[in-house]
């Protein structure tokens, strides 16, 4: 009996460890995904003025600080009990869409494309960005250009690409520069062309991965995401919806401030990452997934023409409810299409140039919840304050947290399929990593963790003895 540990998982944000346990026959008996850091944002923010929370919590992550900035600012809006100006709402959604585009580009091209375009069994020395440059230079160039577009829109709006301070409780702190609007409108077609090209490429290539589709978290769970009043996909606002593995409605239009009635949080003995579950079903039966795959499962439609066309095709190929975690990649590209169309819609409205972009107020409520759909899934910031506005309690539930249970179960499924104790192949190890990567987990966000990159694979026997350790790099 032995145990394999992958420490650390590479090409993800943050670092994690995977333990695969083998039985005496050398077959996989158990597999776990661990997140190995703790950061304590919920504790050390106690006592801080609530309006500092957006800038403090956005420091949780350098990949999508905008997500935390937005969710936190929305929670602060609630504490101030203000309805933010219409243009501020539009600008926040615009910023969010730009971030979805850049983050999805990062996940698909920079992190996963080496597996997807070069092959899971490709030589690890070449299964990276440099290998992509040789074999798929156009795709790599597209990926870099798409991410740059998203990042530059963020910079144009918010002055800084990483950790901007533009989004504030009550709105944003500066109106949209008309030149930034023109420039962004001019750049959207090229970005949309990249996404369309990549979708065409992926729609052909996806059928080359029948084993991965079959084994990457291909099991029934519930799905959770924000939807609009009409059930359409929402990224910046909306209410929570849970659907079952068969698409049946489990809970609909759950208001953000009522999230605790549907989401419970369990702690796991071997990970710093909390494990949220659908409360009425209990733990661990209440397993659900969030993120691109889940959002497209819960939404009736996207609500923009190109994305809806792509969604129809995706559903015609894989079903109304798409179960395999491998299709996070496909879903990500459809969402990028949607985000670009939304950016166009928002910028086409001249009202977005309004100079009324910020509401000022003091503490008018003792509690506030802000929920958005971050690139990786539903992000919840929930604060309580005293009468003077000092934080007395904070709870953050991040996208990777929601997926914790599914990630653990997915690791077991993929290990059972690809890992054979007698011969640990590089391809098998990489498939375990690739499963994790399909979820695009952000471990720095999920434990709100700091530190070194990447995955350690540990092979352990029945008595927990460490038999082998293989680090992927």
């Amino acid at each position, binding site marked *: 009996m032995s145990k394999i540990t992958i420490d650390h998982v590479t090409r993800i944000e943050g670092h994690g460890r995977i333990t695969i346990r083998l039985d005496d026959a050398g077959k996989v008996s158990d597999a776990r995904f661990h997140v190995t850091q703790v950061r304590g944002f919920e504790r050390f923010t106690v*006592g*801080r*003025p609530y*309006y*500092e929370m*957006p*800038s*403090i919590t956005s*420091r949780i992550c350098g990949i999508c600080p905008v997500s935390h900035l937005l969710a936190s600012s929305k929670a602060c809006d609630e504490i101030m009990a203000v309805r933010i100006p219409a243009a501020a709402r539009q600008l926040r959604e615009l910023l969010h869409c730009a971030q979805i585009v850049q983050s999805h580009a990062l996940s698909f091209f920079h992190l996963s494309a080496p597996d997807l375009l070069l092959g899971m069994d490709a030589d690890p020395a070449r299964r990276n960005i440099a290998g992509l440059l040789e074999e798929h230079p156009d795709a790599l160039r597209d990926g870099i250009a798409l991410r740059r577009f998203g990042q530059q829109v963020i910079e144009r709006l918010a002055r800084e690409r990483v*950790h901007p*301070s533009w989004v*504030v*409780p009550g709105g944003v*702190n500066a109106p949209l520069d008309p030149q930034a609007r023109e420039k962004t409108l001019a750049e959207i077609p090229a970005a949309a062309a990249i996404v369309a090209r990549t979708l065409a490429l992926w729609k052909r290539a996806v059928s080359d991965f029948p084993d991965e589709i079959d084994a990457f978290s291909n099991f029934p769970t519930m799905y959770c995401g924000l939807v609009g009043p009409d059930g359409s996909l929402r990224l910046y606002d909306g209410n929570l919806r849970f659907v079952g593995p068969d698409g049946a409605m489990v809970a609909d239009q759950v208001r953000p401030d009522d999230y605790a009635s549907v989401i419970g949080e369990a702690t796991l003995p071997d990970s710093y990452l909390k494990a949220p579950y659908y409360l009425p079903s209990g733990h661990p039966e209440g397993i659900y997934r969030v993120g691109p795959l889940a959002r497209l499962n819960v939404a009736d439609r996207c609500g923009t023409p190109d994305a809806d066309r792509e969604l129809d095709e995706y559903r015609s190929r894989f079903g109304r409810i798409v179960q395999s975690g491998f299709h996070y990649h496909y879903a990500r590209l459809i969402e990028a299409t949607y985000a670009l169309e939304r950016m166009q819609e928002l910028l086409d409205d001249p009202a977005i140039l309004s100079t009324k972009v910020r509401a*000022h*107020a*003091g503490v008018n409520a003792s509690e506030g919840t802000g929920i958005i759909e971050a690139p990786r899934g539903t992000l919840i910031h929930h604060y309580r304050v*005293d009468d*003077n*506005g*000092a934080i007395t309690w904070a709870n953050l539930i991040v996208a990777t947290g929601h997926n914790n249970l599914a990630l653990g179960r997915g690791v077991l499924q993929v290990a059972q399929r690809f890992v054979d104790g007698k011969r640990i192949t590089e391809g098998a190890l990489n498939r375990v990593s690739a499963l994790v990567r399909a979820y695009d987990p952000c471990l720095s966000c999920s434990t709100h963790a700091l530190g070194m990159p990447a995955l350690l694979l540990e092979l352990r026997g029945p008595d927990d003895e460490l038999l082998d350790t293989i680090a992927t790099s």
Partner: protein
Amino acid sequence: MSEKVKVRIDGEVLTATTGQTILEVARANNTYIPALCYMEGLSAVGACRLCMVEISGVGKLQPACTTPVQEGLAVVTASPQLEAYRKIALELLFAERNHVCAVCVSSGHCELQTLAQDHGVTHVRYPYGYPRLAVDTSHPRYVLDHNRCILCSRCVRACAEIEGAHVWDFAGRGIRSMLVSELSRPWGEATTCTSCGKCVQACPTGAMAEKGWGVEEMTKQRSVVSRLSSMREGE
């Protein structure tokens, strides 16, 4: 009765008036000497030790803000030794409390941050104290974050000397010194506070700020205190 005297600052002979300090004469003649606790219009206390200068014939460094000029005084305001000491003083200020520029309302408008940048403080060579300090949010309009306080006492003097309320003072000694409002009452309960905000405008860092501003948003009108003082000089 004030008299004209001749002093030499960095080799340049300047005319000054007795009663003026080295810092005042230097600044009046466009010679920059860094200072944090000094503020035009308030009494000088020599607390921050950043304005230390070398005086010919005097064996130790002297603070420019509290040392009066006299005939024949020869001063050096910049030298490798002074630069080294100023850097140490700045690093010790950072080490003493929890200064996190990235999430500070005054980032980009902070005198401590600016001086650190000007003096090339890229890291702090001393162990940080990481004290557990509270944030006083009790005032309806303003907030006091002890984590960002450098004990320069500009707020104390602005309140006592310009507003005449003397809400602020120090309690404790040495590294345990703390800014307190009205015998350690929460700021919001201080009966002498007129909520004029001069202390906030005088504060060089993000320790005192108006409520509701996010990171980088707290810009201060520091000239207000100096202007009020100069307008009252004739009274």
